[in-house]
């Protein structure tokens, strides 16, 4: 801890040296060193069999033993964090280049500083059990990510989005603090380990609920999600990638950590988690489909994926409640794998979207189009990310959803009546989420990259530089590898779940490796058949003519790029279907009667997040109104204020006289 602090302070000082390029270089080295040390620790812990054996770092561990506890869960999250931070840093070196001219040098330095501190604090979060230190790094994480989000503070709405984020995170911290204090009542220290005794003697669900609200605000569960769709579009793309990919997962880590202490109320908590996650997932994807801002769309998809992960955790808890170990192990393993997978493909999608935005200078998908020919590598990266997030084989998203489905169907096949209803609801939601995600990502991929450009690009978009492409290539490799060779990851995953949770009979990894071998065979066959058919086509076409012609327009040959199908029209039937739930409003100005030669008209459609308007905007407006009324007391005249003091004293005197206080 102390070494790390010293190291970070030194880095900070070097980054702030007022010489160009130094900040970038130092930040890179610092991130690299932090990654190397923490990954070493994490891999060491993951590979060791027993929990107490910490191998090479035992000396370090002895020194820190009272503070830092690294178990397999922490190790897993550290590795996930490090990977995405590295790719994010690589990406930022290219992404921030156009900004370097406009922004003050100090601001860019501060940005990199915040990135270094964000990584350090994120790594510390899963390592600390002491509540006081935990909240400290939790706060550090919030502050540094806040600075990262408001990088483009001149732009409209960025600062507001950042402040919304900052305030909501502090509300969340308050809930965590409250839960910690309640559970530590009567103990000398404020640590998570007190939960073990607290849960033994008290009902478990109220404190779990407090923790859920606190961590859920970070993760973005339903009703706690409102900061996400604002903060992600405002932040630079690498920050969105890191925040959506790993930072919100620390909320998931928090919930998982609390789960490990649970002793009772499994059924209530499990059912609650499953239902709230199902709602979260459905809500996220249903809102995402109607978005035209590509980064807002991806932000809503983060909410959806948090729902899927939460469902896995819920299944894990519920499996314990009904005593079905396979349901439990598959649920937890699915949740953990989806955490990893989402960090990979979501950062990939954000990086690709960021590259596109950097070239076409808009976030509105309706103004893009035809970019696959201009930016082929970015398009492929986005396509792979889109397929993976839709849970389509042979990519990694399918594997984690397969685990969660396995858990669900095992529950459906063996459970009693009431648990079965819960599994049924979860399955129904998960299927719908999958279908809706497909609808959404066919829309966004097709509209951005295929067809013809839907607006004039003032500067012709070109493929981004090699460093930014490398940042996309790095996540693509595991996305494909996990999808094709899933049986490789199942063993470490099951070892993590078995080491942590109170599963009576340890589930051997072999339970799941057989289906995974067949999935691998299926994926291999798919690629093989694709290759064979391609070759046959090539052979057949050798002798025949392959030409190009105009797109079929019903005989009409002057087809314009504006006549292409748009994103709005693609989802119009869906929008009509969901109108009872999600209201899409539009603003337009009607023609006046005296308007003989109508001028230009604007037409906007927007889909409001009804949760946001109901639970954030409306109460906030109400409070502002009340305070505004109260402002009549603030006259600015000294006599009035003296009068207030006098009245207050008289009031207190009266109360004392009447023995009311």
């Amino acid at each position, binding site marked *: 801890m102390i070494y790390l602090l010293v190291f970070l302070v030194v880095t900070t000082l070097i980054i702030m040296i007022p010489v160009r390029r130094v900040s970038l270089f130092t930040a890179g080295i610092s991130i690299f060193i932090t990654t190397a040390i923490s990954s070493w620790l994490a891999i060491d812990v993951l590979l060791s069999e027993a929990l107490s054996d910490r191998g090479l770092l035992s000396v370090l561990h002895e020194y820190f033993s009272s503070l830092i506890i690294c178990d397999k869960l922490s190790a897993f999250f550290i590795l996930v964090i490090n990977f995405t931070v590295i790719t994010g840093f690589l990406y930022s070196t290219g992404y921030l280049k156009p900004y370097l001219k406009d922004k003050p040098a100090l601001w860019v330095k501060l940005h990199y500083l915040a990135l270094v501190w964000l990584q350090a604090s994120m790594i510390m979060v899963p390592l600390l059990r002491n509540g006081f230190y935990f909240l400290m790094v939790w706060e550090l994480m919030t502050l540094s990510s806040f600075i990262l989000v408001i990088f483009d503070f001149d732009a409209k709405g960025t600062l507001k989005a950042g402040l919304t984020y900052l305030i909501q995170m502090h509300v969340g911290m308050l809930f965590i603090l409250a839960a910690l204090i309640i559970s530590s009542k009567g103990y000398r220290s404020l640590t998570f380990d007190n939960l073990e005794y607290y849960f033994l003697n008290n009902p478990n669900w109220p404190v779990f609920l407090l923790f859920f609200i606190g961590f859920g605000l970070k993760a973005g569960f339903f009703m706690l999600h409102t900061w996400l769709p604002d903060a992600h579009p405002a932040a630079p793309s690498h920050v969105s990638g890191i925040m959506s990919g790993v930072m919100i997962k620390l909320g998931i880590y928090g919930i998982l950590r609390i789960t490990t202490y649970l002793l009772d109320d499994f059924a209530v908590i499990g059912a609650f988690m499953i239902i709230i996650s199902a709602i979260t997932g459905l809500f996220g994807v249903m809102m995402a489909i109607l978005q035209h801002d590509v980064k807002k769309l991806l932000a809503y998809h983060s909410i959806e994926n948090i729902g899927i992960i939460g469902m896995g955790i819920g299944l894990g808890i519920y499996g314990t409640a009904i005593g079905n170990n396979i349901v439990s192990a598959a649920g937890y393993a699915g949740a953990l794998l989806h955490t990893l997978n989402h960090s990979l493909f979501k950062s990939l999608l954000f990086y690709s979207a960021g590259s596109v935005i950097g070239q076409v200078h808009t976030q509105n998908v309706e103004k893009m189009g035809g970019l*696959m*020919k201009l930016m*082929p590598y970015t398009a492929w990266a986005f396509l792979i990310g889109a*397929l993976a997030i839709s*849970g*389509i*084989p042979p990519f990694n998203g*399918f594997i984690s959803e*397969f685990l969660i*489905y*396995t858990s669900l*169907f*095992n529950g*459906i*096949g063996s459970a009693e009546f009431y648990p079965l209803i819960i599994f*049924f609801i979860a399955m*129904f939601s998960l*299927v*719908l989420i*999958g*279908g809706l995600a*497909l*609808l959404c*990502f*066919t829309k966004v*991929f*097709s*509209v951005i990259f*295929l*067809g*013809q450009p839907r607006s004039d690009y003032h500067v012709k978009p070109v493929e981004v530089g090699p460093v930014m492409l490398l940042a996309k290539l790095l996540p693509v490799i595991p996305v494909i590898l996990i999808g094709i060779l899933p049986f490789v990851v199942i063993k470490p995953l099951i070892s993590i779940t078995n080491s942590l949770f109170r599963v009576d009979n340890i589930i051997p990894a072999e339970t799941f490796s057989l*289906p995974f071998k*067949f*999935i691998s*065979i*299926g994926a291999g066959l*798919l690629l093989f*058949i*694709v290759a064979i*058919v391609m070759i046959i*086509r090539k052979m*057949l*076409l050798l002798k*025949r003519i*392959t*030409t*190009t*012609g*105009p*797109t*079929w*327009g*019903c005989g009409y040959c002057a*087809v314009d790029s504006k006549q*292409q*199908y748009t994103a709005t029209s693609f*989802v*119009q*039937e869906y929008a009509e*279907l969901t109108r009872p739930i999600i209201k899409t409003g539009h603003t337009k100005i009607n023609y006046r009667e005296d308007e003989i030669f109508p001028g230009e008209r604007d037409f906007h459609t927007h889909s409001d997040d009804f949760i946001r308007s109901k639970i954030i905007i409306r109460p906030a407006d109400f409070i502002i109104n009340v305070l505004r009324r109260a402002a009549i007391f603030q006259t600015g005249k000294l006599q009035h204020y003296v009068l207030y003091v006098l009245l207050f004293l008289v009031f207190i005197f009266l109360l004392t006289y009447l023995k009311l206080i």
Partner: protein
Amino acid sequence: MTALILILITSLLTTGLIVRTKSIVSGRKGPGLFQPLKNIWVLLRKGLVYSETSGIITRIAPVVVFSSLVVASLMVPAAGFKPLISFNGDFILFAYLLALSRFMMIAASFDTGSSFEGMGASREALYGMLIEPALFILIAGLVVFTGGYSISTIFNLPGGKYYSLIYGLIVSYILGNIAIVENSRVPIDDPKTHLELTMIHEVMVLDTSGFNLALIQMTSLLKFAIFGSLISSTIIPASLPVFWRLVAFSGVQLLFGVILGFIESFRARFRMNRNQQFILTVILISVLFFVVILFTKNIL
């Protein structure tokens, strides 16, 4: 292996059977049983025309669509014969392979920059999204009923403890409706329609030609055969001798094709906005099936 061969043979004949039934019922001479195959044969010998707007997606999509359906067909049992690939949870892979083919079809239709093809793509995406729960609820019901976790065990309904033909017929009815939606046949969509504005599947392949179009048509044939085989396994007991199973399989497939042909002859297609109601009805029927299975399981 037998299952795969049966599926391939069925795929060659079902669509022709539907077309033949339609022409006989409407009193036309009509095309022969093998006309769809002849069409594919002609397409295979033609060259290719790509749209000027299109890129790499148009070129790979038909191949991926066809391959994913081929892999999916490897997991399907037929009349009690075991499929080549079978493992716990294979129906998830099956359903998501169909999703892969759907994704690529939609992307390919956008690749041409057409003003029509997006229409079909939009409907395909929406209906595909809506019909998927019906399939999964049906599967959940079958998992409860049979206690198995793979396609070959859960669709082997006659192997279940409390089987009677009525279950097989209900499952067949739901599967038939899913097949109609997946293949976009009447009453969801009329493949013989002449107006681009009202098409679903046909409009998505307006700019596909030659070998690629042949692949798409073969995929559609294969899809019919897959659902036909699933229906056959829910009705035909695996305990019958091989010969009778083969006879029963042929009978079921014949009936499936003829019934679809009759539906297409006597039923008008829906207005587009009625389709969603139709699909939601199918979902509700499978929910009802699930509830019935739940209660019978508890009573018996």
